[in-house]
């Protein structure tokens, strides 16, 4: 049986052999106040055995945005500079409230031991004090790894039949989870333990997640006791500030892995494709969002404004009709077949070796 009661995860207590938490090391970095340049230097000492580091700072509120301004490696080299954000194989989002920063996000810029300095930019003229921490993964990836997922059903039973009791017997969901395994197999990943929960909060509010604040507030409810599991809320709808429909949304990328109780600690996916009986589409959306959370970006943004830091993902340059959108048709054979393509087309199923390298170093994979 695949599912275990979520309580079992929480009651598991100290890490045991084979426990994914065993290879995670957390350090409280303390508090930092931004200077007159709107930034704060956050020193991070990377241990010898670390293969990835997730630095996180916050909360600083939904009305304030922050990002990494500069990252300096132990040898003094600048491995990221916001003034030319795609000059190096590192990427970071601009985030409200809570800022997760993952290294590496490309095999072309691996993590090395020693003293890094993360200069965090907070868009506030007034000094802001942020609390920061870091989580290191200290074990090399195995050839085959798993990722645990916690599915939380937010009032979707009437339309989709999904609830914590019936989920394990739901044919569409079961097929979708198996399909995620297929999609991830190229990366040596599979879904591990899946746990289920019926949302215990305000279902009326979060059944439709409207805007960034509701998204963050919903994720904040996933207090998974820092367990290395990805909380995924299944909802009826996600809309942007203009009311337009979004199919799935992950915090980040990258998300604040295994740091529960903050606004960047999970993903939200709509159940429309479950209602349609379309396990393949649901699986591709779920797999896509989980990989965002673990540090993968779109190979190219829909409008071509950004690319990922991955060397072996195709870079589409064909906007043949000149409309400013890199469509799946224009980019056929040049990125549109990648699982991290911006559109949920049925052909978007591939993962590259470099993408696999990144996600297998996530603290969530074991």
């Amino acid at each position, binding site marked *: 049986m695949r599912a275990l009661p979520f309580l079992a995860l929480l009651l598991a207590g100290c890490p045991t052999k084979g426990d994914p938490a065993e290879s995670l090391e957390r350090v409280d970095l303390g508090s930092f106040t931004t200077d007159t340049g709107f930034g704060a230097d956050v020193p991070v000492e990377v241990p010898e055995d670390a293969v990835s580091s997730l630095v996180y700072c916050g909360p600083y509120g939904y009305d304030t945005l922050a990002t990494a301004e500069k990252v300096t490696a132990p040898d003094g080299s600048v491995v990221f500079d916001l003034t030319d954000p795609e000059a190096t194989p590192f990427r970071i989002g601009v985030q409200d409230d809570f800022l997760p920063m993952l290294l590496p996000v490309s095999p072309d810029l691996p993590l090395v031991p020693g003293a890094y300095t993360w200069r965090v930019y907070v868009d506030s003229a007034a000094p802001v004090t942020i609390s920061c921490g870091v989580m290191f993964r200290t074990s090399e990836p195995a050839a085959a790894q798993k990722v645990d997922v916690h599915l939380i059903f937010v009032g979707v039973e009437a339309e989709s039949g999904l609830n914590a009791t019936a989920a394990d017997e739901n044919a569409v969901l079961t097929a979708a989870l198996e399909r995620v395994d297929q999609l991830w197999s190229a990366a040596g990943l599979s879904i591990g333990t899946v746990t289920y929960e019926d949302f215990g909060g305000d279902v009326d509010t979060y059944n439709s997640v*409207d805007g960034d604040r509701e998204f963050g507030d919903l994720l904040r409810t996933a207090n998974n006791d820092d367990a290395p599991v990805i909380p995924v809320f299944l909802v009826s709808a996600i809309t942007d500030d203009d009311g337009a*429909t979004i199919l799935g949304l992950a915090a980040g990328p990258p998300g604040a892995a295994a740091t529960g109780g903050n606004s960047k600690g999970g993903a939200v996916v709509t159940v429309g494709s479950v209602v349609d009986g379309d396990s393949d589409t649901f699986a591709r959306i779920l797999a896509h969002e989980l990989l965002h959370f673990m540090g993968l970006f779109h190979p190219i943004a829909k409008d071509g404004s950004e690319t990922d830091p991955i060397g072996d993902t195709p870079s589409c340059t064909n906007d043949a009709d000149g409309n400013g959108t890199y469509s799946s048709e224009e980019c056929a054979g040049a990125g549109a077949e990648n699982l991290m393509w911006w559109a949920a087309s049925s052909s978007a199923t591939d993962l590259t070796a470099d993408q696999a390298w990144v996600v297998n170093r996530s603290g969530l994979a074991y």
Partner: protein
Amino acid sequence: MSPLLFTAMLAVAPAQADDALRVTIVSLLSGVEDPVRAEELRALPGDVGAELLALAGSGPSTATRERAAYALGWFPTEAHRSWLATTLADRTAPSGLRRNAAWALANGWGEGALDLLAPALADEDVQLRAQVARALARVGTPACRAAIEARLGVESNAMVRSTLNTALGVK
């Protein structure tokens, strides 16, 4: 006539068929995190509105139908207004489709759709009531604000009350 049947009839009319255009539109409607933008659709050749109308009624997925309905607001013809109005008022239609119809009416006709949107503030579907409040707030005219304020006086659902209050603070 149900809006779904009406659109199905339109969809089978030979003059409306444009397979290449439909494939392009479905592709643009399929962004995972990226909703389609008005300018993307307006830049396409052919009768995009007719294709959207067909997709809104009989598109290949729930998401496609909802997004097509939303996009009809960017092509404000009388036929689209009629379909959106019928869908919004149809309590047997899927909630998501009705919510997107509400946004399309607000985006496409503004205060001119207030007579269609205001009754939906009293619909039994709390998610629809909330989206209509948001959509009316986006229109933001005094008459739309008055409709929101009037609903606030009788609304009992906490989430919808919160949305109505937020809507009044938007503009």
